[in-house]
């Protein structure tokens, strides 16, 4: 019996003026799968995530979550199924760390009390390797790596079904990148969540991915299991993962 994909993209298109960033993306993700999207800068990877979340409206195509169109039904209930770690963390500067982590849990009619939300935030901060005394600091007082961890704690705070990671290791040193990659992998497996990660970092790809999809020219150029990535036979993927200047992908875009 065919399982309904958790996320299914069919012919998704998005243009900005004359620039066709997504020119018909087709992609299926099974529940509990960790999919990593790779591709050159400006190939529309972040745009794809934003289209799925409804932060941007796609021009054409279908985005299905559990077989149902993403843009129908209650918007808050839809978004409550997602967690997202933004590229720069996107932590709210004006709020202390614990409030950032517990932000979603303090919204809506069934919101947690301040004490419960703070306790839960501290629990999530511990899960990402941060001490409780970080809870009362403000984001500006944290290092880049700590901000990523706080962002990760916020993404998992409400135990979402689907988690998006937008370039989770950008700007971090190799050791901290390794720590974040490990955390992402552990948390995704532990929660049984479906994860979609965007990255250029091949060490992240190998650490996080069950499956890999490469986007080029607004379409999925190659998709397959992580174990097949080195012998795909696809010249575009080969050039990308081996970081070669020569190949079918133009270095000046």
């Amino acid at each position: 019996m065919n399982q309904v994909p958790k996320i299914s993209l069919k012919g998704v298109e998005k243009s900005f003026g004359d620039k066709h960033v997504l020119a018909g993306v087709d992609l299926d993700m099974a529940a509990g799968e960790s999919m990593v999207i790779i591709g050159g800068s400006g190939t529309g990877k972040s745009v794809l995530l934003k289209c799925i979340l409804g932060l941007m409206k796609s021009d054409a195509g279908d985005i299905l979550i559990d077989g149902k169109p993403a843009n129908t039904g209650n918007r808050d209930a839809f978004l409550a199924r997602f967690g997202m770690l933004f590229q720069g963390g996107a932590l709210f500067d004006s709020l202390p760390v614990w409030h950032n982590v517990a932000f979603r849990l303090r919204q809506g009619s069934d919101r947690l009390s301040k004490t419960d939300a703070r306790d839960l935030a501290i629990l999530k901060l511990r899960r990402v390797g941060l001490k409780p005394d970080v809870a009362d600091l403000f984001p500006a007082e944290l290092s880049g790596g700590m901000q990523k961890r706080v962002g990760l704690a916020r993404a998992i705070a409400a135990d979402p079904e689907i988690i998006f990671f937008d370039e989770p290791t950008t700007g971090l040193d190799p050791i901290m990148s390794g720590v974040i990659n490990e955390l992402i992998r552990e948390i995704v497996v532990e929660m049984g969540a479906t994860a979609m990660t965007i990255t250029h970092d091949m060490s992240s790809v190998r650490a996080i991915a069950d499956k890999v999809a490469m986007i080029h020219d607004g379409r999925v150029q190659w998709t397959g299991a992580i174990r097949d990535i080195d012998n795909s036979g696809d010249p575009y993927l080969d050039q990308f993962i081996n970081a070669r200047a020569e190949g079918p992908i133009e270095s000046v875009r």
Partner: protein
Amino acid sequence: MIVLNFFYGFLASIGRSTLALLVSIGRLTIFTGATLSHIVRGPFYFRELGLQFLRIGYFSLPVVGLTTLFTGGALALQIYAGGARFNAESVVPSIVAIGMVRELGPVLAGLMVAGRVASSIAAELGTMRVTEQIDALTTLSTNPMKYLVVPRVVAATLVMPLLVLVGNIIGIMGGYLVGVTRLGFNAATYIQNTVDFLVIGDVTSGLIKAGVFGFILGLMGCYSGYYSGRGAQGVGQATTNAVVSASILILSVNYLLTELLFPA
């Protein structure tokens, strides 16, 4: 041929500017409508509203107070010098009071708060836009219009009349200080003249203007920041746009309101 190309290029640039202007007007109209609609629909973020009262109102008091104090003093000197030409020096207290509460209080406070607050709102929201904090709010099931825009616009609208009320009193006091210490007015007579010639309509008209100016500066700060361009340059441009557009709108709406409230 070259002349024709130049002419077409000229026409095209006019067309592009006109379209860009129409797009901006349309987007601002939609933004204003959305703001008004979110003001009357929950959820309401009262903590944010309280915070904005403090930021926009309380922290603007020194700016408004100093502006109106010195303006009141200068006004007294000017009216005294002008009135002396017609032996009408005694009108100083009443004209200072009327000028302050009807016109200078709301307009100067509006412009000063636009400079202080609209710019800071635009910079804050612009930075939030650039660093994806506004997107993050949405993914956390929080409508940025309700969480960011409504508290700022409502706080600015409600707090401006209070600021202007305080500014009016300080401005009249500025006139009083100059009148009594420099122009030889009797203190009791100065106060008596101020109170006698001022009617309640003078004060309320100024406060109505203040509320409208508060709405304008809050809205323009939020609008410019919300649609900020990328990077430091985008945020800088948003800040400039907020102050310039809020100031021009305040001055033009002031004329319209004056026509409406005090028809010739």
